[in-house]
């Protein structure tokens, strides 16, 4: 009982403090129009956001106002984007670790790709791909993958290089081939580096999918919902969609953690 209190009390205090600050801010900001009771408050109070979120979630899933529906649209392009990023990231990492020339030639481009602001390029990508007949999920998934592959490459390169000299020497005394070195040592050793990278990558895939929905006049998805809400000044809708997006990120990170948990169990309790 005391243990439970000790654990939950800090969380409760922080949440209460945040809610307090939020309420205070809402009252101050919205005071000129009469606080806490408007349809379009500048800064909605927590319970207004919660109600808007709840009504969005409780809509029938085929309704255009259903947040579940929009979240599912975003989640599917994020998931496809993440899968692409995973394949691309791991492939690049293996190439970089094995071919010294690629390490020098590829890495600068990979880093450069991340300095280009996705928000600026996303509309171009969507328009260009639309011209060659690629619409719908694919352009969004590509933008999600673009943001998402970077942490996978960097964590995987570090992980594949993590084995120590002595562990490599050991395989040499077995006269093991390079496939064995990869499969028995480098790959399993990289896992504890890959998962933190995948967590970052998964959230970036969600961000990428939303960003791709923003400027393109997409009909569906949390990004489209955000854009419409901000265009029409529907702050409640805007905040509800924002909270929904972070809930989606929580779910996505949970999936990665779940996969990690399975591997930890297979490995007897440690990664």
């Amino acid at each position, binding site marked *: 009982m005391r243990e439970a209190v000790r654990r939950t009390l800090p969380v409760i205090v922080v949440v209460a403090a945040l809610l307090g600050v939020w309420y205070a801010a809402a009252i101050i900001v919205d005071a000129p129009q009469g606080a806490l009771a408007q349809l379009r408050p500048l800064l909605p109070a927590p319970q207004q956001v919660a109600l808007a979120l709840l009504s969005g979630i409780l809509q029938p899933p085929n309704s255009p106002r259903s947040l579940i529906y929009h979240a599912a649209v975003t989640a599917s392009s994020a998931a496809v984007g993440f899968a692409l990023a995973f394949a691309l990231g791991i492939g690049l990492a293996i190439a970089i670790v094995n071919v010294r020339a690629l390490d020098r030639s590829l890495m600068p481009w990979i880093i450069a790709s991340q300095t280009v602001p996705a928000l600026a390029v996303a509309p171009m990508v969507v328009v260009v791909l639309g011209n060659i007949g690629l619409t719908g999920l694919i352009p969004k998934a590509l933008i999600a993958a673009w943001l998402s592959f970077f942490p996978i490459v960097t964590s995987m390169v570090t992980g594949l290089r993590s084995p*120590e000299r*002595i*562990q490599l*020497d*050991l*395989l*040499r*005394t*077995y*006269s*093991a081939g390079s496939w*064995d070195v990869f499969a*028995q*040592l480098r790959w*399993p*050793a990289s*896992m504890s580096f890959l998962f933190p990278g995948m967590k970052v990558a998964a959230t970036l895939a969600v961000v990428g999918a939303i960003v791709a929905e923003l400027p393109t006049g997409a009909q569906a998805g949390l990004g489209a919902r955000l854009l419409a809400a901000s265009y029409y000044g529907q702050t409640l809708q805007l905040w509800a969609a924002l909270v929904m997006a972070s809930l989606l990120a929580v779910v996505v990170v949970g999936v990665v953690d779940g996969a990690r948990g399975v591997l930890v169990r297979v*490995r*007897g*309790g*440690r*990664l």
Partner: protein
Amino acid sequence: MLRAIADLERPTGGTLVVNGMTPELARRQRAYGYVFQAPALYPWRNVERNVMLPLEIMGLPRAERRERTQRNLQLVGLSDVARRFPWQLSGGMQQRVSIARALSFEPSLLLMDEPFGALDEITRDGLNVHLHELWRTTGMTTVFVTHSIPEAVYLSTRIVVISPRPGRIVDVIDCDLGAERPLEIRDTPAFAAIGSRVRHALHGGTPHA
């Protein structure tokens, strides 16, 4: 020197013959087992699968892998922790696992590079007795590098004293204490005599003084 025998490094000069082969051939034929300074176990494999690693790389059939692994774990007295993971074992046990792993090739030569250097003295004594028993049962040629004079005298049939920088052979000492070696043998005059000769050689004195 051990790394040269194992073909992990090239000697600067001279020729090296490992049981009638070049070091590279010996490595390719998996003629030796190597025990490193640290256990170098793979943390994602349990004890049993660590010992199995070289056998998997050799491509042995599953049944034989199991059989050999069980036998070698028994040899080092670790059958009951086969399913544990390396981080659940003490340092001494980890090093015993790595010895079992080196034995699983059934090599004709065992190379040991200060294998007990990082362990406390009590553990080290226990492992010395253990290794000596192992050597008596298998009769395997063993090259053992150590910085400890008692360890060298206790374990060896022949001690090669090498000077530090430049590494030159200073003395070769036969160590005929017999096959039966309880730990108490270290208190006998014969043991002390050999020990002092090793110490003498190490400090650059002329041998046979």
